[in-house]
């Protein structure tokens, strides 16, 4: 099952590369693959038994057997990764749907998009560190090409910047993975999670720091966020959707899976610096967002701000007395899911607007709601969810993060809450500037989203509303993967070692 989820897209890519000739056929194959992949992702998520917890649906084969180095082909999900697989399936389909109007070098485009899907799915589903790393690196290649061929503006510069930043991070990560291997003797994350990782062949703080650097770049955390606005602004719509929706979550996922779960003690020591970095990211991101006039750049900086909440939730493990705050961690994980759907939706809608109006410059837009009611509603939902309106999913995640953090870092939490206020400002100003206000002459003949363009927003709106109204849909899985389960396991493991 997991193998199918991960490798179905690449199989479709091979079919496209070898067999599909006409653009119609290419899009047909790709669409089928993404729909099927989404269905499989739902199945993986649904089959995950939250009562049992732990890693499930494990598939294990020896890949490189031998005395000294052993890699495995090892897939499996817990509540956290099952949720991420679901998110990737959903956003992959959304990205596919907004790519239906691609006309330039169609075959290559969809081959790269499908390859990207496989890589990201692989990151979330791998339990072997080498496989995880391979998938992590594999994601760079399609992204590099997607941004630099189908992007706009300074696309080659942005693609290179994206690549170099991520590559630096993953280079650090590789060293840490090797240190873990030679200390414990396995790449199996399940074993590593149960092992005593306090005496490694290199100082544990360095290993922790190198992992953190890799994931912080991906998340991204201030001050290593600078690649994100560039990559977002210049990437084609579908790639922005994938980037904001899924790729950033790789950073959060790694942070929780590796830094928190494997090094709980170091995480507790580092919690205060994490919290400070998180608050800087939240506030800095929000302030800079206020100044943006380009729609995509605006969402990109708002992502920096919103991903700060993930780090803040992670920092909440600094709770006194060694007990872990499960609410904050669950909140951080949920924030990843909700930010994925909300920002995905925002980028989809910006793509629709840009497609019709051929500009993303906010002062040029205005009064579009009258001409494109569907798009206006969808953008409103996304915006309101983004600013944390109760009843939509963003609210649940942020409140959980705050609940987890407040008992530990009261002042910092209060500062972070300021970020919510600022985000209300930039979201509402943007909505007014784009959709409302006086209708401009030049937009008199602009059309609403077409039927195809309506599908992707509809899917994402369903997800946003459903999680907002009934969060247990996702949080049940998350708390059996991170939240309480992780807290319990770490307490027993660390306690057992003492």
């Amino acid at each position, binding site marked *: 099952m997991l193998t199918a989820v991960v490798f179905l897209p690449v199989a479709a890519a091979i079919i496209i590369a070898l067999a599909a000739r006409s653009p119609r056929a290419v899009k047909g194959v790709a669409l089928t693959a993404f729909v099927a992949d989404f269905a499989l992702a739902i199945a993986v998520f649904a089959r995950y038994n939250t009562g049992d917890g732990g890693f499930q649906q494990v598939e294990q084969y020896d890949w490189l057997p*031998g005395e000294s180095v052993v890699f495995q082909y090892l897939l499996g999900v817990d509540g956290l990764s099952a949720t991420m697989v679901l998110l990737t399936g959903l956003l992959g389909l959304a990205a596919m749907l907004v790519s239906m109007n691609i006309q330039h070098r169609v075959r290559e485009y969809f081959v790269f998009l499908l390859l990207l899907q496989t890589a990201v799915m692989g990151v979330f589903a791998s339990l072997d560190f080498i496989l995880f790393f*391979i998938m992590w690196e594999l994601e760079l290649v399609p992204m590099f*090409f997607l941004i630099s*061929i189908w992007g706009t503006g300074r696309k080659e510069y942005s693609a290179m910047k994206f*690549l*170099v930043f991520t590559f630096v991070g993953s*280079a650090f990560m590789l*060293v840490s993975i090797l240190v873990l291997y030679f200390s414990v003797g396995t790449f199996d994350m399940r074993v590593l999670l149960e092992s005593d990782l306090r005496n490694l*062949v290199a100082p544990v703080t360095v290993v922790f720091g190198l992992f953190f650097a890799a994931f912080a770049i991906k998340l991204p955390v201030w001050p290593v966020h600078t690649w994100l606005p560039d990559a977002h602004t210049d990437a084609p719509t579908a790639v922005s959707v994938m980037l904001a929706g899924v790729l950033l979550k790789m950073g959060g996922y790694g942070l929780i899976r590796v830094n928190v779960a494997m090094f709980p003690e170091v995480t507790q020591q580092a919690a205060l610096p994490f919290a400070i970095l998180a608050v800087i990211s939240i506030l800095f991101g929000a302030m800079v967002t206020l100044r943006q006039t380009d729609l995509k750049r605006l969402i990109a900086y708002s992502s920096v701000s919103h991903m700060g909440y993930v780090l803040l939730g992670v920092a909440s493990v600094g709770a006194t007395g060694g007990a872990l705050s499960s609410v904050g961690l669950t909140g951080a994980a949920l924030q990843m899911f909700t930010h994925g759907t909300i920002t995905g939706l925002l980028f989809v809608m910006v793509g629709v607007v840009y497609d019709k109006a051929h500009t993303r410059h906010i002062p040029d837009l205005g009064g579009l709601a009258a001409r494109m009611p569907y798009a206006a509603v969808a953008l409103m939902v996304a915006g309101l969810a983004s600013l944390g309106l109760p009843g939509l999913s963003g609210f649940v995640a942020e409140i959980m993060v705050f609940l987890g953090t407040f008992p530990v870092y009261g002042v910092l939490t209060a500062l972070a809450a300021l970020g919510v206020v600022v985000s209300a400002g930039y979201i509402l100003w943007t909505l007014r500037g784009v959709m409302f206000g006086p209708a401009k002459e030049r937009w008199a003949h602009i059309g609403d989203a077409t039927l195809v363009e309506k599908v992707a927003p509809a899917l994402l709106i369903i997800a946003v509303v459903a999680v907002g109204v009934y969060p247990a849909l996702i949080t049940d899985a998350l708390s059996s993967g991170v939240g309480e389960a992780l807290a319990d396991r770490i307490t027993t493991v660390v306690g057992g070692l003492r």
Partner: protein
Amino acid sequence: MNSSALWLLSPEISLAFVAMLAFLVDLVTRRKGYVAAVSLVGLVLPLLFTTLLWGELSGWVNAIGPQPGEVAGVSIPGIFGTLVVDRYALFFKYLVFGALGLVLLASLDYRSRLGRLEGEYYGLILLSAGGMTLLAATVELLSLYIALELATLPLVALAAFLRDGRSTEAGIKFLLLGAISSAVLLFGMALVFGVTGSTYLSDIAGAVATATPGDVPFGSYAMLAGAVMMAAGFGFKIAAVPFQMWVPDVYEGSPTPITAYLSVASKAAGFAALLRVFTTAFGPADLHWSVLFAALAVASMTVGNLVAVAQSNIKRMLGYSTIAHAGYMLIGVAAVAGRTGDGSLQGPQGLLFYLGGYAVTNLAAFFAVIAIANRTGSDQISDFAGMGRRAPWLAFLLTVSLLSLIGIPPTAGFMGKLFLFGAAVNADLAWLALVGVINSVLSAYYYLRIVKVMYFQEPASQERVTCSPALWAALGSASLGVAFVGMAPWPLFAFAAQALLGFAGR
């Protein structure tokens, strides 16, 4: 010396025979294609003998009886103990012959530029390969020196083969700098001989082991100077900084197949000799030279990558890139000295694996460059513009090999770096692994520049770029190797482990 030595030398002897045949065929026929065919088909002979020798070691061939000094199943010494047939030597025979076969295949497309001297071209390249395989098999300093010269001198002639300004310059530079480095190597050998009284590696090892462990590395200043000078001599051969001055000019001026051959086979043979000499003769002092090679590794990686960024000629750029790769490989040498003290061979195993993966990768890159540059008549990176459209498959394969050079999975380069850096971490050299990965990031910049030029810039003309079936075969097999080693590293990894059975007494 007895007749069994002929059997132990059969791969080299048959190779020399094929080389002579190439010269002869060239004399009697005007159809130069025969020369190439003879050399290519003739390669089957040495490969066959290599396999038979492997069988002799493993016991499923028994052409000669037990030899004096033979370690059953591990090594058979011959010719007064100066040469040894062990799996390590055989591994390098396979590697060199494999690279040679691909280079010969790729040379077919280059024939128009060789003029009427085709017989000499093929003969010399074969002879040089003989020198390289001997280099991996010697366990005595003088034979090692002779093998080194046999490997290098034909390459000097080959570097100057195009007989234009640049090519002549390449030949002269290679000759002069090569002579200096040989002199340094020889001087180092003389010092070591003077202290230990023997040119046999095993005897030197005994002397190093018994030298009172004082404050001086290697036991005495004379030995230290000798070891460092020998490292310098090998450093020239493998193109490590600071002995790399010859690389860019020679790589740029030589015929491209020779450049490819130099960058793969010659480097591999240099590493074969370096690793054997240092692990065997200076094995007891491994903590001392581990530091030396770690420093050389850092210098090579960093200088190679930094200077490569500024290149506009693709052959020069690949030249600097091979310097950087020599640096990565030196990590494997430095990691021999496992400070964990378990006598681990992960460093050498990683190095042999890396050499195999690097051979197919670099050959694929050079073959794609030959194919494209032969049509456009230029080695400038800017003339690769739009190749993504003019030659989709060539550009794709070149991209794959460049990704492999960066070390992005799922390619051979990634697996190689994984094993090398892993060995470094295990040998308590995590900082060296960190320098290595940072350098990989640095290298991504200039490799991807070529990808960028090929895919994102407008072509100068719309004319399709094609290449001959022979070159396709060479490029195709090398690229398949890149993908295979990257996705199924097990066979090569096991082969490398086999090659190190009983190596250097560990």
